[in-house]
């Protein structure tokens, strides 16, 4: 695919927009792409798709510079070509006859929720969003989510919005919901799972991957139902029902 733009939108957090036929193959919000960032790196890197624009044949991802791969990715310029494989995985299902949902994103995990918010909005679903970040410097996509409903921001250090984590925010603000979609750090997803055992929801989880298509069994995770075989995050997920998987 061709890089349309690659810009830093918060401290060490980038938005990368790519153009190519692949964008037209995306079926669901929550799917991901597997990028070969450089010849110097052996493996591809998986990134959740953040936004899709099929008429322009474009998609966007968000990434945080945390290691060698993302450092190289941040140095790429508009016009550069990049080797992308995908779209891969199962995304967030859209449920009929739902009027209102809650999206809960943590850090860079807000990415797949944005395309989901767009799709839910098209179906006239009210989208309330709770986003948690480490600090003000890491806050992204607040105004983007505001287009589709109410947005609440929590920062751990209290430098912006609510001081605390997303669950404390939900409890304090008494936000009620019947359907939840979430993506973020494992600790956050695990806490959501424990807190909202009886609520319908979906989570996108992250794991180190090799093939991205379900062949290598590298990104395995366990189902709560012990009689079932392991899930493969890349093929059976990355989106799972909130309470079907051990996080």
């Amino acid at each position: 695919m061709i890089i349309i733009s690659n810009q830093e939108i918060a401290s060490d957090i980038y938005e990368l927009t790519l153009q190519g036929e692949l964008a037209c193959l995306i079926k669901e919000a929550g799917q991901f792409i597997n990028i070969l960032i450089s010849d110097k790196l052996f493996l591809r890197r998986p990134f959740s798709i953040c936004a899709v624009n099929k008429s322009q044949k474009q998609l966007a991802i968000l990434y945080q510079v945390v290691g060698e791969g993302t450092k190289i990715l941040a140095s790429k310029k508009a016009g550069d070509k990049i080797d992308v494989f995908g779209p891969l995985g199962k995304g967030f299902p859209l449920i009929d006859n739902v009027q209102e949902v809650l999206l809960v994103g943590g850090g860079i995990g807000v990415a797949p929720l944005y395309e989901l918010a767009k799709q839910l909005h098209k179906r006239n679903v009210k989208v309330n969003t709770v986003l948690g970040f480490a600090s003000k410097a890491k806050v992204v996509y607040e105004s983007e989510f505001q287009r589709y409903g109410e947005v609440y921001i929590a920062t751990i250090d209290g430098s912006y919005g609510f001081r605390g984590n997303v669950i404390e925010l939900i409890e304090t603000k008494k936000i009620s919901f019947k359907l939840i979609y979430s993506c973020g750090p494992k600790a956050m997803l695990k806490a959501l799972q424990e807190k909202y055992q009886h609520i319908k929801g979906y989570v996108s989880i992250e794991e180190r991957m090799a093939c991205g298509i379900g062949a290598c069994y590298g990104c395995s995770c366990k189902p709560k139902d012990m009689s079932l075989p392991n899930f493969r995050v890349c093929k059976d997920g990355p989106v799972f029902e909130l309470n079907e998987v051990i996080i």
Partner: protein
Amino acid sequence: MLKLKLPGLNLKNPIIPASGCFGFGKEFSELYDLNILGALTTKAVTKLERNGNPTPRIAETDRGMLNSIGLQNPGVDNVIKNELSWLKKFKLPIIVNVAGSSIEEYVEVSKLIAKSNLVNALELNISCPNVKDGGIIFGTEAKIAYNLTKAVREKVDLPLYVKLSPNVSNIIEIAKAVELAGADGISLINTLIGMRLDLKTGKPVLANKIGGLSGPAIKPIAIKMVYEVYQNVDIPIIGMGGIQNAADVLEFMYAGASAVGIGSANFINPYICPEIIAELPQLLKDYGFNDIKEVIGYAHK
């Protein structure tokens, strides 16, 4: 010009996806027609279902990767019912990789697979570095490798390939032992044991601490072992370890491989096998060969 015959295997070409890197073929069948492959080696199969090791199971390295999957598989009964039956529709020799925690388990799994009549050959995995009991312990001592191969040989008529571990002091000794025990071929090499540490936590990246190193980083070691084993046994060798392109295939075959396994390269380029198959005829011509068989052991001529 790419056709070859190995015990139990009529190969259209020498390209065989290696065990553990291709599942049971389903995922790749969504990308291309599996019938173009030389053969297919399945993921390792054990008697009962295994869940494998905790995650992270994958760590990138310079020019390669570590994995510690830990033989996750649905167990032999499910593999026969759901995977091997499904593979039957392809005109493709199927090699099933067999693993276990005891010689009895290897024999039992091999017998069940042979009885299914769905496969062309077995690959005995006596070299998995990622499980505590079994796997590699059968492949690091010549006497045990001999006993295991012989025990399966006595109960099963299918052609037997034995996949050897490079984590040994004398690969020739092990190769000769499995040949003597009745192996029809040797697969060389499985992964090398390695470790990576996370600089922030100070701990190993893999939950299992150690894993098997694969990728181009191990290719020179694999070439050397194929070269040496070729000089010391009369049974064919399926060479593998870091192959990324048609030139690598040629190098392995020069060293003595009769066919090759393509492993972790499938993860980076899922179309690598068909691409190599397409490139091979021209590469053979470029080096003055008219048939793939001329290349086998060329380094020794």
